């Protein structure tokens, strides 16, 4: 393994450890939006998708790339979209009253 490859693995493990610590602090009240937000983040693979599609040599590869981009974009955009919708529903007692009056 080259130095770069080792660094990549280390970055993966370090991020995982840091993420684990941060996510531990999220209350179970927000677990559904947390999960759907994380889900949206897993669409980060869009970055790789765009790069491999750009470097593709054949038309077939570019078509496969396009499919992948569609899947990843839906994952990201709809993921953040539904998370936003869910989070905006959470209101405290005061906020709910304010809206009602």
């Amino acid at each position, binding site marked *: 393994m080259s130095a770069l490859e080792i660094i990549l693995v280390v970055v993966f493990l370090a*991020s995982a450890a840091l993420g684990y610590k941060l996510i531990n602090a999220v209350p179970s*009240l927000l677990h*559904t939006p947390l999960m759907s937000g994380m889900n949206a983040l897993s669409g980060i693979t869009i970055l790789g998708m765009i790069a*491999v599609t750009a470097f593709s040599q054949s038309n077939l590869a570019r078509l496969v790339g396009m499919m*992948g981009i569609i899947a*990843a974009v839906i994952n990201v955009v709809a993921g953040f979209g539904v998370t936003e919708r869910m989070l905006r529903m959470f209101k405290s007692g005061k906020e709910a009253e304010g809206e009602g009056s």
Partner: protein
Amino acid sequence: MGLVEMILDIGIPLILCLGVLSGIRLMSNVKTAVNGNRLSALCMLLAIIYVFLRTDVSGALVHIIAGITIGILVSITITVRVRMIQMPQMVGLLNGLGGLASALAAIITLNSVEPQSGFGLITSGLALAVGALTFSGSMVAAGKLQGTLPQRPRVYPGHQTMTVLIALGILILITLLPIFPDISGLACLLLSILGLLFGYFFAIRVGGADMPITISLLNSTSGVAAGIAGMALGDFLLVSVGGIVGASGLLLTRIMCRSMNRSLSAVLFGKAATGEKKEQALQTEPAEIVGETEAKESVDPIVWLKEAQSVIIIPGYGMALSQAQEQVKTLADLLEAKGTGVRFAIHPVAGRMPGHMNVLLAEVDVPYDKLFEMEAINPDFAHTDLALVIGANDVVNPAANTAEGTPIYGMPVLSAEHAKRLMILNFDTKPGYAGVHNPLYDGAPNICLMLGDAKGSLEQLIAGLG
């Protein structure tokens, strides 16, 4: 590579990654969570722009733009149309798409003309397999949640052996990749098939109530797939965010497992909560329950509601199933209007995904400061006049504390039976998903059972109070 480029190549992903982490940090408080989500989304947008600036996309510009446009159009439709009740299957579906994208990225990388290092081949192979299993597993899970596939666990003959063999096959193929790089085309095909099969076999044996664990685990694998694909491509941001998502899913999986008293391996390899145990429990169930519950109809639930000064409502999957959230809110409002204190007790695994009940109640404007986690509210049952269980069973089953040897023994449950009076709205008195008879149904002077669809029962109560 110039110094400036190098700084940009490391610095920009680092900044974006820190942005995502700050976004997650903001998610830990309900007041800042919306901004946290937006910050994460913004970082993602910047990352995509950065890729466009850094990469020469002219070779496939049409495909890329078309892909993004189609994706955005579909997303808008989904975001606007999806109902909260469909959220579990939606998360499953989107998760599957993320896995699919990682698998496709790996396929293209494996088939590219440029020769690759052993590390590149191994990580591509892994990303392909994990992406494929995330895709098929998520699709099966989403199908089960939507009801297009039967919810019951389906176990094939030799199921476990097959799962192990498939996993071995995947590992062998990946090890072979760097030794025989020429077979990458064939290996690609085989890895895709084996990955898809693994995901299918994994998810098809999982029953309804184990879904929170399954969905969390697939959430984790989708992150891992993205992270490993990032290693294959040498993309730091992909690696880092993939790692974060992988860890998050794993953490949720652990929380879910703990709350359900299930070990991860039991869910993965389907050791418990299958048919046999359920039948056993059904047989030991006392036969006279039905008669006793009928006798209990003489207590007037309306009077109980009127007499109670403090009420704790315990919603479960039955509430979601009969879509009775609106009625629950109406009842809570009616009770509060006459001065009764109403709170909600939420078991961590009530429903079909982590936090499912909170979202459903938030949708009908129940303020989140009335929703209490199990540990916070359990001591309060003892000085509460009435606990109202709506479509929950296993999560209030006191057998979890007493019935050694049953699947739920040791599982943390809501101690609803400690309340002065207990009212249970349930479809029937059959054991819940865990298959353990619930002694609360045996009839006690302070327990009132209302059988039937939760929505109908609630409407009766509302009419009686109103």
